[in-house]
């Protein structure tokens, strides 16, 4: 939690002024009884009505000043807390964006979402309350103790015992309940996860008539959440009663000691009353405090969860970005522009897991079309994912323009590459806005050109508002094939040096797929193209086809060569063209 407080630094002024004005208000509150006392002692004893009215006006004035102080304090506290939460949300979002693919895979989206929303909200209310009230309460508690000492040192020793005991109770309960509240939030992640799952998988769940089962599962999750909440609640429910008993125990002791001291002639009756009043002042503050502590405890637990995300180091390390290496890369780029080279590359997703790719070694020249084909789970996507450095290799290296991808700044690297993923994803906005992702400054003509190449021109033209047609979140209002073609167009707008099509035409019919490949081939400029596909027909004319089998290269060459020499390729090919060749797989 502590580390998060740096985000308050822009609100130093507010975080100081807020509590300060609050203390000012509290001080006025403490003075009022004195005014009353003098009203009784001076005004009434002398029967001076004018004095009484004057004192009443003074009290009203104090009330007014208190009001102004308090409003100011509330304003500063709210500004600091809201500003803090806004900064925090910004930083957290920015940080999560820097996480690498494998980190995202292992964290899971749901928990990141709860942390960015629910957790930050809790922290915000916590900070707001702390700024407003946490200084005030100790101020009054210790103030009362000091006042007690000025009355009678021996009797005040009771305060010296009571206050530490109270602190132990308050902090003890906090210590026990913080981990519990953390668990509560983790359970909440579970509830969020299953809700999300049910929204995305609604068709499958209904197809299997599994609504009831899912409801049972959800009930299970909320039960677990409830039990955790109850447990945490039971602990914090102790706070109020325990502090009450300690304070009043102190009060009883105070009266007893007071009576003894009065009998000994050391204290006066009035002084005992003063001591008793100080003790009840502490009680009033603590009752307030106890309620706050619950909120603060939650805030700390949530803060720690947020911190947990910040502690994940931001994604891939960008190393070797010194000037010299930059110069080198420029030199290298001149000699080998557009080349992609895999130098004995191996990849493993999880430590101790199986290798996803083993010893991949090849070099693609500028303008080449490289086909990647292979069985399900053979590592096709893994291979192309290494080019934009979505994952880091375990052994060997991937070089673009003769320079290791790890030597590039990530943005520079990814600017060169257009990737179209298996799952076509579009974002809320217009078609135009989605296409501009590729290149902010693309002209109208360039957009249409990309659409034409991606075989998307026709259906965009049919849309009422053409490029300005609305795309809903995740492209819900478009068909699978339309989404795929738009996501291809989006990558083309980038005019990348290297284009990667990761099985991105699966929702297209054969005719459209063929037309797409043809127009990509005819694109101006020499783009190096990687096509991952299940369809041998999509790759027939690739300059090189890489055949993968279980993460290993089973064959590499042109279609003709592979058909001669590579058994895996033969099997794949004949499985699709059995009729023509008259051979079954």
């Amino acid at each position, binding site marked *: 939690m502590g580390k998060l407080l740096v985000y308050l630094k822009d609100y130093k002024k507010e975080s100081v002024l807020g509590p300060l004005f609050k203390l000012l208000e509290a001080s006025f509150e403490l003075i009022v009884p004195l005014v009353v006392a003098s009203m009784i002692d001076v005004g009434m004893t002398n029967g001076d009505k004018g004095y009484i009215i004057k004192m009443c006006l003074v009290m009203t004035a104090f009330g007014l000043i208190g009001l102004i102080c308090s409003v100011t304090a509330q304003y500063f506290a709210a500004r600091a807390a809201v500003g803090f939460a806004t900064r925090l949300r910004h930083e957290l979002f920015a940080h999560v964006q820097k996480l690498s693919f494998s980190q*995202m895979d292992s964290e899971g989206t749901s928990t990141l979402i709860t942390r960015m929303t629910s957790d930050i909200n809790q922290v915000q209310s916590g900070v707001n309350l702390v700024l407003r009230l946490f200084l005030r309460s100790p101020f009054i508690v210790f103030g009362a103790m000091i006042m007690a000492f000025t009355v009678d040192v021996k009797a005040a020793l009771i305060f010296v015992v009571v206050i530490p005991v109270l602190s132990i109770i308050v902090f003890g309960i906090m210590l026990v309940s913080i981990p519990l509240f953390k668990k509560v939030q983790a359970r909440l992640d579970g509830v969020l996860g299953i809700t999300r799952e049910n929204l995305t998988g609604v068709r499958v769940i*209904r197809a299997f008539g599994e609504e009831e089962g899912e409801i049972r599962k959800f009930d299970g999750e909320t039960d677990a959440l409830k039990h955790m909440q109850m447990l945490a609640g039971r602990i914090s429910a102790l706070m109020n009663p325990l502090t009450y008993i300690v304070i009043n125990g102190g009060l009883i002791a105070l009266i*007893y000691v007071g009576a003894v001291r009065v009998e000994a002639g050391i204290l006066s009756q009035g002084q005992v009353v003063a001591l008793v009043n100080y003790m009840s002042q502490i009680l009033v503050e603590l009752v307030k405090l106890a309620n706050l502590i619950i909120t603060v405890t939650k805030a700390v637990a949530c803060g720690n969860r947020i911190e947990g995300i910040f502690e994940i180091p931001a994604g891939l390390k960008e190393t070797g970005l010194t000037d010299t290496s930059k110069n080198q890369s420029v030199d290298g780029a001149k000699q080998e522009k557009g080349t992609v080279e895999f130098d004995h590359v191996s990849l493993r997703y999880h430590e101790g897991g199986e290798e996803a790719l083993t010893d991949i070694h090849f070099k693609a020249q500028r303008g080449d079309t490289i086909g990647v084909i292979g069985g399900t789970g053979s590592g096709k996507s893994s291979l192309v994912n290494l080019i934009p450095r979505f994952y880091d290799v375990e052994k060997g290296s991937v070089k673009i323009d003769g320079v290791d991808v790890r030597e590039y700044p990530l943005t520079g690297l990814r600017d060169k590459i257009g990737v179209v993923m298996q799952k076509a994803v579009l974002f809320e906005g217009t078609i135009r806005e989605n296409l501009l992702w590729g290149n902010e400054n693309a002209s109208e003509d360039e957009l249409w050109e990309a659409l034409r190449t991606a075989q998307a021109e026709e259906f965009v033209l049919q849309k009422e508002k053409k490029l300005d047609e609305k795309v809903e979140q995740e492209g819900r209002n478009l068909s699978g094939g339309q989404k795929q073609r738009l996501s291809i167009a989006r990558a083309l707008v980038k005019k990348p040096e290297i284009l990667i099509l990761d099985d991105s035409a699966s929702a297209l019919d*054969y005719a459209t797929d063929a037309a797409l490949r043809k127009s990509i081939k005819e694109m101006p400029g020499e783009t190096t193209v990687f096509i991952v596909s299940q369809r041998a027909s999509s790759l027939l004319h690739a300059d090189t086809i890489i055949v993968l089998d279980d993460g290993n290269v089973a064959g590499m060459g042109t279609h003709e060569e592979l058909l001669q020499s590579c058994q895996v390729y033969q099997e794949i090919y004949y499985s699709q063209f059995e009729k023509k060749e008259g051979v079954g797989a």
Partner: protein
Amino acid sequence: MKGDKKNTKQKETLIKVLKYIKPHGFLMTLTILMAVVSVVLTLYLPILTGDAVDRIAYIFDPSELSVDLGVIWVGLFGILKKMAVVVALTVMAQWIMNICNNQIVYNIIQDIRKKAFRRIEELPLKYLDAHAHGDIVSRVVADVDQFADGLLIGFTQLFTGVVTILGTLGFMLSVNVGITAVVVIITPVSLFVASFIAKKTFSMFQLQSETRGEQTALINEMIGNQKVVQSFNREGKTLEKFDEINGRLEKCSLRAIFFSSLTNPCTRFVNSVVYTGVGLTGAFAVLSRGLSVGQLTCFLSYANQYTKPFNEISGVITELQNALACAARIFELIEEEAQVPDGADAVTLKDVKGEVGIKDVSFSYVPDKKLIENLNLNVNPGQRIAIVGPTGCGKTTIINLLMRFYDVDKGSISVDGNEIKNITRQSLRTSYGMVLQDTWLKRGTIWDNIVVGKPDATKEEVTAAAKASHAHSFIKRLPNGYDTVIGEDGGSLSGGQKQLLCITRVMLSLPPMLILDEATSSIDTRTEIKIQKAFATMMEGRTSFIVAHRLSTIQNADVILVMKDGHIIEQGNHQELLAKKGFYAELYNSQFAIA
């Protein structure tokens, strides 16, 4: 007018919340009882303290007293003992109250969450397809949470507050009626101020809640698709968009929080006016001998005690406001119209033969954009129907209609002679085995994901199904085999592996009819051919609908429907359609065309 509307909405929400509280009547009574006990005891304690102090006065100045000092000491001890008992009882009452409140609140929010989730399961797909998932999630999670917080703090403080006010009022009346009247007349001003601010801030809180929902939706979209964002180097732009919403949220949160927090200082100011008023009238009463100084002191302290809960209550009102705004959003979801429930006389399909009839069906997602018009089709039991056509021609829509994910606009669809509107959804849908192009896996083990349609499957059955779908070999190689836990949406499994698991599901449950929508699009062709064989066995005697781009996979279909723009333009088997040299023939030849 607008304010009135909001006010009524707030009231409606409150009434709904009360309905949720109703079942917890016993705990509610108990908690109120405990509140009364603890407050009365708390108010009684100062009287005991006063008594004790009086005895000390005698100790201080024994000359005024005729009795022995020892007797006074005994009396003092008696009072102290009484105080100890009162404190102990108060603590018990407080504790029981806290526990009851926890119980009530957490049960209520669980209730609400369960209702909301049930509603999600019952909502028509029309609603779910059209609403941002992130926003729905935010309602079920964040809004309910905020509501719980408000409710809990509200309960704990509202009761004690109200009871304290009533209790103090009683004690004050017993001392002096006139001055009590002053207190009672001025204090409502603070309630008025509080409710005025509350009314004004309700809409601010609602705006805050809405903006939060918008932000959650963005987070859901962007973080959920982070890979695409990163591959386009769009982190900066996305962050800009996020910051725009974040900035708006900051503004409206600040307004909501600041203005609602004005309640406390304002009511406190009113209280200090009350205090002064008591002081003034009291002082004059003392001068005219109507009141003793001691009574005035007591009165001042009670006046203070009387007004304090008003402060707390107004603080609580802020919380409750926020809670109500959140509750309103949740209720909106819960009250969203569910799909028309199955009729009482709905038929449960049994021993499905697989005769499907589509009669004069018209359908469109958007009223003014016609999609399917006057579609007619008769499928005999056991027939294989393939649907082909260019993307966006309505293939998937037919599946949506067959499964009754959407209801037809006109015409009817029947299974075994029963109109599907008169069949229970459950039995209709489980009669179909469906594999979609968009794979969906849930968090859990591979096993859990396979047995979705048949939870009581034995190990032999599962392995047999997995072998038939050729998923067995890759599952075996996973670290824990069938017990391997996969993350959200399949985690690091490849697209093809996910699809194999989805096929295994259907292979296991073996329903009487099949729908395969691009079921093997992500699977390599070698495996596909093997799966096709398994499919072929499975399709034997089962009515099947197949959507595919790879025409090789549908050549053996009994009927091929060629669709374009929502119409069936050609119909027949492979040979017939090729001979026609129409759209199908063109499509078929294009896959062998040299690009």
